[in-house]
């Protein structure tokens, strides 16, 4: 009576994937006041809104899994998120043969295929993580841009007020929101 041999092999497959994405905006300030005065107002408004200064004219906000950098030198706003993820999975293979060597050889061969399939599965998982990160980035960018819109609105409002003061005596300043939800600023000046 003949006897078959079974051999089971296991291997750990590791993949380190780097995921990252960037959303870039261009910042342009309408010059109500001279450019350096507008920039000074923007710096102040950014600091008030919770941006921290990181280097000369670079202001950073890290929230909601992403970092937004306002670069006043380049007049750009970049929201970025990145991560290195170590992914691990086990590949298993069983070989059968009429003797031990045959069973081991068969198991090794199958393990190679299993390893490759596992590596491909981990790469697919990496791509899925990339999509998740891009979604997180988009949500964070939307939130940060909403904040920046408020910051810019403050800068423009303050610029207009200063400009009005330069034009003459400010008699009345009315700030509010229109029925359609838009910010309204009315300044009456006597010259």
């Amino acid at each position: 009576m003949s006897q078959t041999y079974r051999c089971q092999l296991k291997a750990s497959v590791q993949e380190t994937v780097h995921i990252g994405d960037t959303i870039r905006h261009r910042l342009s300030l309408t010059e109500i006041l001279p450019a350096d005065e507008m920039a000074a107002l923007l710096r102040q408004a950014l600091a008030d809104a919770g941006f921290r200064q990181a280097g000369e004219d670079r202001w950073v906000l890290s929230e909601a899994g992403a970092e937004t950098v306002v670069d006043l030198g380049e007049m750009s706003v970049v929201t970025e998120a990145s991560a290195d993820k170590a992914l691990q999975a086990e590949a298993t293979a069983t070989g059968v043969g009429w003797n031990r060597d045959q069973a081991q050889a068969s198991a090794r061969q199958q393990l190679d295929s299993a390893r490759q399939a596992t590596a491909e599965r981990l790469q697919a998982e990496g791509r899925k993580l990339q999509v998740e990160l891009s979604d997180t980035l988009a949500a964070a960018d939307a939130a940060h841009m909403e904040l920046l819109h408020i910051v810019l609105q403050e800068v423009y409002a303050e610029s207009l007020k200063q400009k009005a003061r330069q034009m003459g005596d400010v008699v009345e300043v009315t700030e509010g929101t229109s029925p359609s939800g838009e910010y309204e600023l009315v300044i009456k000046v006597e010259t």
Partner: protein
Amino acid sequence: MSDVHQKAMRRFVPFCQAVLRGQQPAASDVRLPPRDPNAMTAEAVAVLADTANKAATRWLIRELGWRARDIADPEDDEEVLRVPVWDPAAWGDLRLRFTAETIDVLILTWNIAIRATSPKLARAQRRHINRTPQAERAAARERLSAEQHASRKASDRAALGGLVGAGNGDLIVGHLVARPAIGALNQSTGPAQLTNPLSQLAWYDIASPDPVQLERLFAADMLPLLPWIAASWPSSWRKRARRWERDWRAAAAAFTAQAALWGAWVRLAQSAGRPDLLVPFAEGYVDQLRRAEHTRAALAGQVQGMRHVEQQALWDAWAGALAPLASIHQAWKAARSTHPIDRLATDTLLLSGTADLDLPHWAAQATTLTASLRGDLG
């Protein structure tokens, strides 16, 4: 003339006639050497010269269409004349000059159209399956010959790209043969480069711009021909745009090529003092902007799920392609701000050519679209 050349010439002249008339030519088989006086009889040259001249003139007329033309009065640079196309004044200076380059273009096109796989090689490859020593030797010989053929074809292709359009007629013939040459090239050696400036602008989405070649377009001998040539471009661009909208990679390439090619034309038209030559481009932009919403939705659907940084590269390329419109609008505003009495005929032609387009509206739309594509803040 050798037997081989005689045999080739019997087919070469009909091949050139077919190519120049826009018909499907028969496949060529024997390679002809360019710039070899022994390869061509005087009769063949005379037939080719006549065919090239007629084909180029017929093409110019077809591009403009049989309709009345508004032209700058040659005797008064402030007057615009409306003339029927058969009026000699409408033709302007349509003189075409041909050099030996036209013959070279046709010979190179013929050589490029030689089939990549000869029936001999195909037979040898079939025999190779039997693996007899003789069949294997024959197949090896044929493979070597095929490799040499491919290498010669590559050099012909490079030579075709290196031709500069010595005469304005050469430039037109180069454009007329580009389509069949490209068809043959694409089959044998992959996507082709268009080096002829007329072809680059007519099929802008597959061209990589060559500033030197584009500058050739604005040489003095080309200026009378350009309104004829450019008249049909907007419809050609429209057809191509429908194609690249379905493939975001092709769209990105088209945007990049458009920014360079249309931008170069706009700059050259300005420096040549010919704002009237901007009309086809204004039409092209308005057509693109009318479809912008549809184009954006089609492309956004394709790039959904990709990294934002990759998506942004596509949108930035589109924004770049829109940039030359600002210069066209500037030229339009400058023409408009001049009092009609003082207006040059070329300005009047720009204004009349764009009268139905509502250029200020579309220029504003382009600015809004650009800001939105770039994600501008502020």
